[in-house]
């Protein structure tokens, strides 16, 4: 419990730092893009509207730097992330709200699938090698490692392009882009089916590229665990192989994964941005690209903030789950 409290404290601090960095970033860049942007709108929008936008964006030059920062924090607390330049007058929070569910669905599904497949394969490979007997090493393991490495080295945008070309364009099995067929209501059955159909290729791609890391991580963890005394002793007790593999080896091999989750999530987030771009999938990564191309700073800032906060929360959740799974942390020291 104490551990969780400490981690919560750390989470709050880190959140604050992330928010502050996010705030400071565009203001630190050369040429102060923020103010340059407003120059674009001169003459197109009425001065009162510009002033309102400036306030929204926290650019009220009357109150000075610290005042702007405080305003920014206040806006944040009320969920106001400013107004987008390129989708004017849509609010950033609205735009994010529309696209985030698409991304979360895709990422959530693909991550879970990649995790299950990857750790399963990694465990299997390590177990086969551990029980290799007189062979120098099992073929499964020797093949799986380069396979995992290759998966991790595939540029996500490239694989997306290749799959898009061959599977979607040439063979026509999947649509060539978009999140759902136009004009179809999402809540209908055919709408849902269309959703899945459109999400299939992005999901497959994302799963493929994130699987590699899980395979390697789990394999390495498993191999380390298999060398531990308790596995040997489990065998000495006459337990069946399956028992040893699952209850003694795998259960312990999974624990370090929680700490390695941060790395995996970083890869997933990166891959997902490119995948959305190539497949024109209406998620937050696609939105980011548009924001970048249009130099839409409020939108960029808002998206970045969401990315950061989500990752932080995910890491925190992983930490909390770790406490649940490792009795050494949960139950405490000797009696």
């Amino acid at each position: 419990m104490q551990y969780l409290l400490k981690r919560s404290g750390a989470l709050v601090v880190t959140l604050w730092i992330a928010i502050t960095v996010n705030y400071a970033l565009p203001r630190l860049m050369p040429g102060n893009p923020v103010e340059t942007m407003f120059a674009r709108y001169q003459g197109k929008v009425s001065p009162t509207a510009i002033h309102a936008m400036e306030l929204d964006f926290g650019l009220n030059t009357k109150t000075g730097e610290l005042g702007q920062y405080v305003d920014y924090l206040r806006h944040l607390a009320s969920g106001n992330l400013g107004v987008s330049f390129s989708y004017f007058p849509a609010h950033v929070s609205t735009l994010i709200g529309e696209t985030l569910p698409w991304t979360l669905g895709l990422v959530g599904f693909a991550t879970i699938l990649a995790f299950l497949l990857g750790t399963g394969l990694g465990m299997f490979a390590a177990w086969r090698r551990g029980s290799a007997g007189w062979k120098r090493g099992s073929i499964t393991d020797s093949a799986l490692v380069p396979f995992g490495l290759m998966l991790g080295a595939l540029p996500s945008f490239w694989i997306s392009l290749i799959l898009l070309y061959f599977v979607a364009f040439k063979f026509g099995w999947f649509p060539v882009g978009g999140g759902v067929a136009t004009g179809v209501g999402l809540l209908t059955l055919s709408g849902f089916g269309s959703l899945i159909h459109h999400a299939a290729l992005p999901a497959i791609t994302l799963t493929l590229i994130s699987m590699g890391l899980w395979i390697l991580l789990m394999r390495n963890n498993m191999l380390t665990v298999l060398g531990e005394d308790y596995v040997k002793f489990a065998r000495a007790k006459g337990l069946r192989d399956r028992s040893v593999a699952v209850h003694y080896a795998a259960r312990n091999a999974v624990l370090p994964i929680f700490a390695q989750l941060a790395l995996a999530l970083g890869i997933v987030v990166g891959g997902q941005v490119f995948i959305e771009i190539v497949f024109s999938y209406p998620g937050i990564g696609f939105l980011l690209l548009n924001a970048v191309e249009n130099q839409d700073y409020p939108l960029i800032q808002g998206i970045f903030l969401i990315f950061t906060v989500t990752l932080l929360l995910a890491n925190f959740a992983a930490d909390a789950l770790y406490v649940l799974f490792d009795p050494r942390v949960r139950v405490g020291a000797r009696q």
Partner: protein
Amino acid sequence: MNWREFRHNRRAMTGASILGVFVVVALLAPVIVPYSPTAIRFTPNLLPDGAHWLGTTVNGQDIFSEVLWGTRASLFVGFLCASLISLIQLVMGVFAGYVGGLFDTVATAVTNVFLVLPSLPLLIILAAYLQGGSVFVLIAVIVVTGWAWGAKVLRAQAITLRERPFVQAARISGESRWHIVMTHIVPNMLGIIVSNFFGAALFAVLAEAGLEFIGLGNINDVTWGTMLYWAQEGNAIFLGEWVWLLVPGLCLALVGTSLGLLNFAVDEIANPRLRRLA
């Protein structure tokens, strides 16, 4: 780091060989390209044939020449970024871990801040804010986003080594801190440091290509990433020019895999538990 073990490790040698081929190509590119990679005088959108082994792009450039030339950019950026990242990690990770105290506290705080920010979005945003452009901007951005995680790992290892008797003995005998780090700590962590180097190179190569693909690099440069950018712009998919799509990315994947193999193999050599039983 044991050279003999490296030579006998199949994965290391495979990775080194693949990478070696690309290095040779990069060095010899000016000599072996059949045409100038930037020349746009050829008939556009040709499929592979005798004169153009991989066909031509929508702008009339020879794809094969472009691919050969693109090796230079990827390897240059990859290794330069990896070197810079390793240098930063040496200071912020190894040195900070060893000396402890205020320097370490500050360094760790900075590292944690960078760890909090998601790499790829940050990469994109920084490149966008700085208006992309030259390759040096890309290098700077990649280095800034890529050093943090490895630094944390190196710092943890340095802290472990700090407690070893031979290090403490050196400390008592009055050697300077940098001297101790370079002669005692680093040689004993060489495995992880080298492994990190290859990992950083992998990140750099893919990050550079990714940014160029979105158009944040200099789109007039000839690199594998910009090739894919132009392929996307030129609607290669709809024109059925799959070779244009396939080859630059395949090269990226091969270079990436070789770096991954090296990263993995060095890690294996340094960590006996993971080694093959041979």
